Structure formats: structure tokens, C-alpha cells
């Protein structure tokens, strides 16, 4: 029994790693295509049909490029930083139920690595640790622009973590559990039982915080766009940079799963249609990340902190209080 469980878990981990590493690559393809179409361009067209093999070409390039460690960096930290980003992104995925459980060859599979009873806490915590990737990478790079970017990343981090935690508190109070599977069961009664209807404010706040969490465009402050420098990743090359990249995209997918499961009913009653529904919701949230990148400008770090501390945090607190009163 123990051995079987062990093997099953290992297989699940490998499958999730492979699928989401590949998805990160394909995600870049979609990002380029969608952004291009929205800006009246064509995007990648030359490598393979519709430019699809561009992903493979980029992968080969990333894997074979020389791994440069500049002389004055703090070597060990510089080397470990990208690993932190990628590893924490994938570790967070352990508590996410990607699909309803299904039976294959008479063996029941639960597509979740570990259904721990503190799932959401674990996910938010691990995603929070992910900040150490950019932060340490930027600080170890011996490059002032990387350092600036890392500092900005830390400032953003402090601001949005508050919103993430507070906004999700109200749904947690309603469900009374921290496990994402329990969240899903709570909403399995069809569209009307989705938490988004009873907690629309928390939904919007969490969604906004998700943009800061993944560092996507309205809050893409970790890159020094105004200095035309990529920020903490400036000194990185080859696969080390690629790890940052995979971490970022995997994070986008995982946070899309989390939003869909917490607020939009997840996979519903667990039927095949429900599973498709979950994937559809995730696809929409991923698309929305790309959509906003084409449409919206970045805010300044001080504006983001203003938004988080002076606007969103009071709203989140009021939301919790009201939820508490209603539940009493």
C-alpha cells in the first residue's frame, strides 16, 4: 500500500512537471500570437506551421546557450535563484486538484499530488517564497538595475500579499476549510452555488492580487521597462534565465487554477463536462493575463502600493467584517 502510494505520487509529480513545463513553452507561443493579433501584427509565422515550432526553436536555443556567470556576482546565490523561482512555482501545484478524480484501468486516480487540509495556506505560502528567486537573483547580480528591480519586487510583494490573504479569508470563512477539494465540493451544486456570487468583492480583489503575484502587466514592476532593462534577469543567460521564465508561466497557470477552483466552482460535480469547464475557466484566466498585457499600461510602484494599502486593503477588511456579520 505504502509503496503503491509512493509510486503513484512520483508519477503524478513527473506528469505535472512535464505538462506544465511544456505548457509554459506553449504559453509563450500563445502570448506572442495573442499580443501580436491585438497589436495588428502576425507574431511568429516562419518556424513550422503558423510558427508553432517557434517554441521548440526557443527551447533548443535556451538549452544550448552558454551559461554565463559574471565575475563579480555572488556565485552560489546567483546560481540558486532561478531554481527557487521554478521550484516554488511547481511546489505550489502540489495542493491543486487539476481535474476531478477519474478511473483508469480500474484504478482510481486523484489528480492532486497531496490533498493536505491546509491547501490554500500552503499554496499562498509557497508562492510567497517564490519572491526569493527575483530578490536573491537581483541582489546577487552585482548590477544596479537588477538590484533596483529586486527592491521594487520586494515592495510590491509586501503590498499584494496582504490583499491576497485578506481577500481569501472571507471565502475561507464561508467554506470552513482550507482544502481546495472542499472548496470544490462546496460549489458542486451548479453555477448558482459558485462563491463568486456571494463574494464578488473578494473575487475581484484576489484577481487583482493575482496580477501582482505573477508580476503580469498592470503590475509588471519587476522589469525595469522605463530603463529599457529587463530587471533582475539582466545578468542571466541560457537555461538559468529559462527557469525564471518557466516559473513565471507556470505560476500564471497555477494561479488561474486556484482562482477557478476557489471562486468559479472548479470542476463542479466531477463529471467530464465539469472537468472541461475547469479547463475552460483556466484558459479564460490565462487569456485575460495576455489580454491585459496588450491593453493596459504598467502602474508605478508607488501607485501600486497606494492601491494595495489605501484602497484594496480597507475594502478587503470591510468585506471580511460584513461576511462575518452575515454569517452570524
Amino acid at each position: 500500500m505504502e509503496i503503491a502510494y509512493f509510486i503513484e505520487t512520483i508519477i503524478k509529480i513527473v506528469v505535472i512537471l512535464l505538462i506544465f513545463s511544456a505548457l509554459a513553452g506553449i504559453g509563450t507561443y500563445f502570448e506572442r500570437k495573442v499580443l501580436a493579433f491585438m497589436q495588428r501584427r502576425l507574431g511568429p509565422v516562419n518556424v513550422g506551421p503558423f510558427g508553432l515550432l517557434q517554441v521548440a526553436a526557443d527551447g533548443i536555443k535556451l538549452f544550448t546557450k552558454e551559461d554565463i556567470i559574471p565575475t563579480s556576482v555572488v556565485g552560489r546565490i546567483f546560481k540558486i535563484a532561478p531554481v527557487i523561482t521554478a521550484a516554488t512555482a511547481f511546489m505550489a501545484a502540489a495542493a491543486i486538484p487539476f481535474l476531478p478524480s477519474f478511473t483508469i484501468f480500474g484504478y482510481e486516480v486523484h489528480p492532486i499530488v497531496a490533498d493536505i487540509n491546509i491547501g490554500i495556506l500552503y499554496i499562498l505560502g509557497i508562492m510567497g517564497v517564490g519572491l526569493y528567486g527575483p530578490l536573491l537573483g537581483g541582489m546577487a547580480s552585482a548590477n544596479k538595475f537588477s538590484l533596483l528591480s529586486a527592491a521594487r519586487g520586494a515592495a510590491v510583494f509586501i503590498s499584494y500579499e496582504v490583499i491576497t490573504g485578506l481577500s481569501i479569508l472571507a471565502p475561507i470563512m464561508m467554506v470552513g476549510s482550507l482544502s481546495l477539494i472542499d472548496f470544490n465540493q462546496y460549489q458542486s451544486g451548479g453555477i448558482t452555488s459558485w462563491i463568486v456570487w456571494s463574494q464578488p468583492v473578494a473575487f475581484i480583489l484576489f484577481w487583482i492580487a493575482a496580477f501582482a503575484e505573477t508580476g503580469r502587466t498592470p503590475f509588471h514592476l519587476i522589469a525595469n521597462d522605463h530603463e529599457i532593462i529587463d530587471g533582475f534577469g539582466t545578468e542571466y543567460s541560457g537555461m538559468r534565465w529559462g527557469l525564471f521564465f518557466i516559473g513565471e508561466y507556470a505560476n500564471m497557470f497555477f494561479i488561474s487554477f486556484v482562482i477557478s477552483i476557489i471562486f468559479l466552482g472548479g470542476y463542479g460535480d466531477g463529471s467530464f463536462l465539469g472537468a472541461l469547464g475547469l479547463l475552460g475557466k483556466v484558459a479564460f484566466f490565462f487569456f485575460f493575463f495576455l489580454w491585459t498585457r496588450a491593453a493596459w499600461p504598467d502602474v508605478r510602484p508607488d501607485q501600486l502600493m497606494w492601491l494595495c494599502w489605501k484602497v484594496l486593503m480597507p475594502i478587503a477588511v470591510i468585506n471580511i467584517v460584513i461576511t462575518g456579520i452575515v454569517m452570524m
Partner: protein
Amino acid sequence: MHNEHIEEHFSSRNVAEMPSDYYMVAIEDYPKDGWGKFKRAAKRAVKGELFVGLWVVMREMIRFDIHTVQYPAEKMPIGPRYRAVHEMKRLWESDTERCIGCGLCEKICISNCIRIDTRIDENSRKEVSEYSINLGRCIFCGYCAEVCPELAITHGGEYENASDQREHFLTFQDMLTPLDTMKAGAQREFEGFGAITPHEDERVKKTPLAY
């Protein structure tokens, strides 16, 4: 027709007085006190401007009105004023070189990159024996083409050249219009400086100059 257009351009530059698509953007004063700032933030929050942005890019995606020029396969027409690598023209009547060896281009060249030498040939006529342009120094200012009394040296439109040394690009023979092009009557004259890009009239918009 052409002159009319230009005249109209110069005589009435004040866009405020003419019917046009230009209009003044209403810019409100910046709020000075906290209450004003709060009102502005609240107004912006509920106005839905973010969704306008989302809608605009979505509309462009659905319209699929792609403006990409797929460069090696497609090319934009370049303007007749474009100053690329030089060309040497031939006379239409006799197919001989137009250059009379006057040396004006060498004299005027701002970066001293033209070298020209002449000699007296068998028929006691002046002949260009040496003509070279060091493209490593040329700044493509166009003075040589402007000063040439014979319209012999001109700029061409060929911008696709690659080499590890710019000096390798051309010899006098490369610049000279090939004889078979001449035979086919296909030598293209340089329209020169001030030439108007085709269809420019439709594309140019008036600049609002009345400040």
C-alpha cells in the same frame, strides 16, 4: 493642381479655422486637496476606462486587420528621395558613361571619400581612369548627387547589401548601369531631392501649427 495644394498648405496653417478631424482634448485641472483627489480616484474607478482599453484591443483582434510586412517576401516601396548606395548613369543616346570627370563630386564630398582620376585618351578626350567611393566613410549625405552637372552620379534604392567590409560594396563597374539594362531601356532616372513619394498627397495630414 500640385501648386494649388502646396499653396493651400502654406496659406492656411491654422487648424482651428478649418474644418478638420482635429479637436482639443479636454484636460481637467489637477485636484489640489484630498477630497478632490478622492473624487478623481472614485470617478476613474467606476468610469470603466480600463474596459475601453480591453475592448479596443479585442476589437482589433477580431477585425484581424494585420499590418505586418513580411519583409523578405514583401517589401515596402521606398521613396524616390531615398539615398542608398550610389549608381552611375549612362547616356540614353550613346550608352556611354555620363561622367565627364569634372571632379565636383570629389571636391564637395563632405567626408572625403570619393577619389577620381582622369587622363587623356587616344582621341584626346578626357576620360575617367579611376573612380572609387569609400563607403566605409560615406555618410550618404547626397551632396555628390546634387552637385553633379551631368546627373551622372546618383543615389540608388538598393538597401539590401551585406558584407564584412563596407568598402567591398562597389567598384565603379558595379555602380555603372549595366549595358544590357541600357539596351532594354530600363535605366531608372533619379528623381532627386524634393521628389514626392507616390500618393503622398493622400497620406500627408496637416500639422496643427497654431499654438
